[in-house]
């Protein structure tokens, strides 16, 4: 049975249009997410020596948690470690730009806050940084979403989003959930 070359060409064209359409839809989804929801691969490239994090200036134990910097920026520093986050609860204000900075002394971890654009891997040797603005108040779950070892499923932190009026940092700009740990 002879097949007409023209018919084959038409069929190929139709399939090419289908594939082209799928590529177009995916590209527009990426574009929409990136521009309107600020969801994009975090592109911060900043190094941090995992061996000496605990003796470093920024990620030393006493410096972790939420802090309002002198210039008014809200920055939360969190260590992801086998198998918990330090601190495992952070307080942030609703409706204000918040910068979350993560790093790890051991293995690859990941974090995700459902319903927000906070979603990044935390890779040893690098600082993972996310800019966000929380709109809903309440306790949000921030689980580790990159398998990191046997205690992975117990590795969950809380992001406590409070109304701007209830966000009252201490004189040094720090604010923590409940009792501060003996440091």
């Amino acid at each position, binding site marked *: 049975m002879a097949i007409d070359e023209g018919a084959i060409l038409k069929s190929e064209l139709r399939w090419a249009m289908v594939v082209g359409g799928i590529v177009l839809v995916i590209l527009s989804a990426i574009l929409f997410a990136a521009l309107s929801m600020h969801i994009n691969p975090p592109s911060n490239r900043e190094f941090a020596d995992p061996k000496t994090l605990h003796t470093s200036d920024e990620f030393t134990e006493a410096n972790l948690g939420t802090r309002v910097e002198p210039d008014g920026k809200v920055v939360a520093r969190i260590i992801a470690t086998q198998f918990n986050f330090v601190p495992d609860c952070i307080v942030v204000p609703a409706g204000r730009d918040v910068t979350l900075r993560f790093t790890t002394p051991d293995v690859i971890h990941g974090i995700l806050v459902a319903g927000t654009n906070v979603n990044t891997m935390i890779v040893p040797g690098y600082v993972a940084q996310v*800019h966000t603005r929380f709109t809903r108040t309440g306790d949000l779950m921030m689980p580790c979403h990159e398998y990191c070892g046997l205690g992975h499923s117990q590795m969950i932190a809380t992001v406590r989003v409070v109304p701007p009026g209830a966000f009252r940092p201490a004189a040094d700009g720090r604010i923590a959930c409940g009792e501060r740990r003996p440091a």
Partner: protein
Amino acid sequence: MARQTDLVPDDGGVSPAGAPAEQRALDRPWRLWASIIVAGALLVGALIGFVLIPAGQAGNANLSLYEAVCRALGIRSGSPAQVQPVSSAVSVPVSEVSWDPAVMRILAEGNSRRGAAIAAQTCASCHGDKGLSQSDVPALAGQSPYAIYKQLADYRSGARAHPQMTGVAKALSVPDLAAVSAYFAAASKEYAAIGARDLVSEVEIERLAREGNSRRRIPACLSCHLNGVGGPIETPVIIGQNDDYLLAQMNAYASGQRRNDVYGRMRDISAKLTPAERAALARYFQGTL
């Protein structure tokens, strides 16, 4: 010769690999258009990734369009944010031990013969012959050299305090600490089987030790406290450890009295455990060998 010419089909002078001439003519515009479409898709993709998205995000991070595009292309290093001001907080490390190559080399070179001599002189009276002790003095046989070195170094630096150990560790040099650590680590294989004690088999406690508790965010003890599973390298092996000692340490962590656990992992976990659970876990680990 004749056989070979037979193999070449009569295709009107086109090379054997190619399609017939009329089909090639039919394909030509299609190939042209396909190339244009692929090139166009690449161009559009590059435009989106390197110009459009950086342009949309530049304002977010207070960058100029040029800077944002350069960073997206990887020409300029940096992030969509400026370098963060390093906190003004003073670094007050809980422990000064960091596992850099220099320390690892010291441990690798730890002379266990010298360690044996120091151990016999200094350690044996409390920690027992070959590191097998009783009651609230920790047993050292079966321990990893990193765990022993970390604790000795912390006693030396003051990150951990003990009426006797602080003085002992300060009297030893750093290579001596490594030698002692190497000695007790080597002693483990020979003596690890000694000391099988009463087994505790409470279901809840065993579950806590083996699986942890997700609701209370308590990771399983054994996700770190076994050789080579997880957690920091200095995590001690606690199986077969004396229960009085284990309980005292968990209580000290919970109250914040002991704080040389980097990033407070054990302070956090101990505080989440009830006093009864701490006691049961201490018994469980003494008995599990």
